[in-house]
């Protein structure tokens, strides 16, 4: 867990350090989009550090696409 936490912190520090000057000049909208993206990644980051199996992007996409995808595959299987 410590190594994972270190990797996460290093990535965020690098990201913020390289974007710091651009962020100072950014509009509110740009900051909002940047913040939203960072929050989304932070959720997945928590799952990564804590090694939890909480709902993720695949949960959302599977709830929409999985059943028709599986139905199509069944159609192709020889009876």
């Amino acid at each position, binding site marked *: 867990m410590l*190594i*994972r936490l270190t*990797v996460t912190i290093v*990535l*965020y520090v*690098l*990201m913020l350090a*390289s*974007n710091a000057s*651009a*962020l100072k*000049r*950014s*509009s509110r*909208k*740009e900051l909002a*989009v*940047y913040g939203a*993206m*960072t929050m*989304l*990644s932070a959720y*997945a*980051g928590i*799952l*990564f550090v804590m090694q939890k*199996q909480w709902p*993720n*992007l*695949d949960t*959302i*996409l*599977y709830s*929409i*696409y*999985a059943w*028709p*995808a*599986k139905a*199509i*595959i069944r159609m*192709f*299987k*020889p009876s």
Partner: protein
Amino acid sequence: MNNKTTISPQQATLLFLSFITSSAIVFIPNPVIQAAHNGAWLSMLLSGLCGMLMLALVLYLHRQHPTQAFVQYFRDMFGAWFTMLVIIPFLLSLFMMTANITQGLGLFLTSSMMVETPIYIFHAFTLVAAALTVRAGIEVMARMFGLLIFIVFATVAFVLLFAIPDYDPGALLPQFNDGWKPIAYGTYLTYGWPYSEIFLFTSIFCFVRTDTIKKWTKSLYGAIVFHMAVFSIVIACTIMTFGKSAAERKYSLYEVARVIEITGIFERIESVVGITLIAGSYMKISICLFVLNLTACRLFNLKNDRLPVYPISIAVFFLSVTMFPTESEAFECWTVVWPFIAICFSVPLLLALAGTIVRNNRRRGQAPRKQ
């Protein structure tokens, strides 16, 4: 990364070829052979024909809106809210796609070459390299990928040529023994991955200089034909090398490279295939990140196109290491769910086509009245 940046038609063709070939050359043969058995080569050719239709659609939209990315002309036709409704699921799918490619590379390296290294180390380095490339812009990508795609094809040719002594052409028979269903299944798989992903080029072709569009489209179709031929050859060579057990070899090209043994000269040259996969995955991840970033910027009308690249890359990194904890879950996603998601990319494309046709008809109707 603004609209003033342009690439030449030749560079666009190389980007296109890099994208459709990329990591797929190592990953695709196994699931297609599993699905279509000895008829896998035919599935590849059939899906390539469908891919040409997809390309024709993308090029038609590009001709109608030569200077705009997909999200821009979609918003012009359908308004901001409907665009959000259609593009946000597409963006989420693109996040998943980029994370999947990254995970594919990580799984390959940790299961075959560097088994003791944590998978997230590979993901982190690959995504850092891809993010820096995207920040450098489409011109740099186009120039660099020309060399990388040459290395990929040279490596594939090298492996296939040196494996000739191990080929058994008789293993290709019988053909079409199980009827049409396996071939249709293989066609579905390979159309979903990589041909329907051509949709992403609706956001890249707007950077191409538009003065030579007719000559340029021919080379794009040529790239698809070349791609179909190379993939069919790789599939046929895999079947000729392993016979019925070809369907069980996960990274087919890597497995073909493992059997090559010219004592005293070439041994254990499978690591060369690792180069193919790393270069291919890196190119595809870079293109996906580029489109992801561009679509997000155009969707939210951001002035600074480079600002979201790093947060997007970090999100992709964490998704790639958290979505599918086991290899079998990831494999199920690639072969069962992903082809369908990729085929659903056609929905916004068809909506844009319908919108463009309606717009053109209206303009034609208005023109005589003005006269």
